[in-house]
């Protein structure tokens, strides 16, 4: 069976500049997919091409087996929540939500009733007759969401919708959006440059960089098994160390910073002798101690800076010219001092090998 939403060979150039370079992507019905990447990586361009506001230079997009080619935005039946919400200032919340129904010929009484129902669903009971400027940012966000969902779109696109909200409200809205999406079962693409947001919300993350898809996969897959250096660096914190494979069989690499390092085999890519690689060790997989730890690989470093976050702390140190980052539980931090030398240790499986 064909996937629900299919992008094949989608290419977009502006003059000499290639914004998107052959994007291939399949999305299943009901899936919550996040496009993650730095600004200018092509994620928003892809979204706008799907929505019909930009034309692809080459390539094809289908939803449920039907091509979107030649369809104007209003003919695509795709709901969009914009970054600034784009609520119509001259219409009340209910009228905003009624608008897509109005465009589909629904009579006013029935449409407004449906709109209020939808506002209930997003938690805005009793706010139907307010104008956008009388609503808070979070409330405007909810209206925009209701408006994009009320006409039962085939696809929901969210373009960095949480960017303008402050931290607490962001987290609430993440949960809300997820709840409503599950309840309605609508296939959703969420665009963001915030990796924690992507981690917490998605069924699948698609990482964009320079107009290419770097990797697509489940959040934890992407976190623990990044396929490129860019992904390893962009998602979460990382220690990335250059190394050369010395024994592919025994999975040993020689690393200028740490010496000989054994790396895991499970779920890791195959390597050959003499291959230049990068080793990824996540800061939370390193442990600090005064003395070397039994059964783990150990090395020494000098502590430069300790950044406290309360429940945990980031310890930044150096070994030779290489910077080492370690996450330690908040309680442990009291015994550490800046300028001190200490050991850090890790297990084989914590060292993940990547193509350089």
């Amino acid at each position, binding site marked *: 069976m064909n996937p629900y939403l299919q992008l094949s060979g989608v290419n977009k150039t502006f003059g000499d500049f290639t914004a998107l370079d052959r994007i291939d992507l399949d999305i299943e019905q009901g899936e919550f997919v996040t496009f993650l990447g730095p600004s200018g990586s092509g994620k928003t361009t892809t979204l706008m091409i799907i929505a019909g506001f930009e*034309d*692809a230079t080459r390539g*094809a997009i289908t939803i449920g087996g039907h091509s979107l*080619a*030649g369809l104007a935005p209003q003919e695509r039946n795709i709901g969009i929540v914009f970054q600034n919400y784009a609520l119509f200032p001259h219409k009340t919340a209910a009228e905003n939500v009624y608008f897509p129904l109005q465009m589909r010929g629904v009579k006013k009484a029935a449409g407004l009733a449906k709109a209020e129902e939808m506002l209930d669903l997003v938690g805005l009971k009793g706010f139907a007759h307010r104008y956008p400027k009388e609503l808070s940012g979070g409330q405007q966000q909810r209206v925009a969401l209701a408006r994009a969902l009320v006409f039962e779109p085939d696809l929901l696109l969210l373009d960095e919708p949480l960017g303008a909200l402050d931290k607490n409200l962001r987290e609430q809205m993440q949960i809300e959006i997820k709840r409503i999406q599950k309840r309605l079962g609508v296939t959703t693409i969420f665009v963001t440059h915030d990796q924690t947001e992507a981690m917490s919300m998605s069924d699948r993350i698609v990482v964009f960089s320079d107009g290419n898809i770097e990797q697509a996969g489940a959040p934890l897959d992407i976190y623990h098994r990044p396929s490129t250096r860019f992904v390893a660096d962009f998602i979460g914190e990382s220690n990335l160390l250059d190394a050369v494979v010395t024994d592919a069989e025994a999975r040993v690499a020689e690393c200028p910073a740490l010496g000989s390092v054994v790396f895991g085999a499970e779920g890791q890519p195959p390597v050959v002798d003499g291959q230049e690689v990068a080793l990824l060790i996540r800061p939370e997989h390193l442990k600090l101690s005064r003395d070397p730890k039994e059964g783990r690989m150990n090395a020494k470093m000098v502590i430069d800076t300790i950044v406290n976050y309360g429940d945990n702390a980031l310890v930044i140190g150096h070994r030779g010219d290489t910077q080492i980052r370690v996450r330690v539980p908040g309680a442990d931090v009291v015994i550490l001092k800046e300028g001190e030398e200490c050991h850090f240790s890790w297990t084989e499986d914590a060292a993940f090998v990547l193509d350089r």
Partner: protein
Amino acid sequence: MAVTLSTLTERRNLWPWLLLAPLAVYLALFFLVPLAEVAIMSVTEPRPGLANYEKVLTGSLYRKVFLNTFATAALVTVCCLLVGYPLAYLMNATTQRRAMMILLLITMSFWTSFLVRTYAWMVLLGNNGPVIWLLETIGFEDPPGILFTRFSSTLAMVHILAPYMIMNIYSVMQKIDRSLIRSAESMGAYGLSLFRHVYLPLTAPGIANGSVLVFVICLGFYVTPVLLGSPREQMAAGLIGHQIEEFLAFGLGSAMAIVLLVVTLIVLAIYSRRFGLDKLYG
């Protein structure tokens, strides 16, 4: 997809011209053509040649009128600045409420027609008017007539054009970051030196804007000088009207009009080189 794409872009390129075309044609027919007509008349009436320009540029009467126009425009500009700058400053310094009241007064003045304001000055300065009455009341015997002099027309023009100056300076002053002034004070600038080194340079764009606007409008001012000024000290616009209405000297009037236009455009060009013309009337 490729087909719709190309037709779309084609339509996009044509569309703005379709939207613009009616106005472009209109302005060509009813703005550029009459303007060109003035230029043509200036070298064909009453007979072909540059005689009109020779007269305008060398004749002592015309030269005097143009110099007088310049001098008056410069004087009015300076006076507007002297009136406008302190007031804009005070509006910024005083309470919000007072500033709003003054702003209301200025917009009211701005929106009241040139003619009404000119007439009001006639009433004020007339032989039986309040100013003379006031002078007589405080003991002046037989005060001189001030209406229909260079003084009265200049005063009225300053009054009429001051709102342009005030609004320009005020809007610039309002945008000045207070912390900039505070930081200058913290570095030891105060009083006159604060004004000279910080405030004045920051408000310079407003001064330039207002001055150019006032100067240019004043150069071509017709109504007020004709109604209030001395008939012996005409300004350019008045003399042009005079040539056309009284003597039907279209050629000479047109030549003067062209000279006036060129001078105006030169001032605006110098200005737009430095600041961009679109900002002037914004």
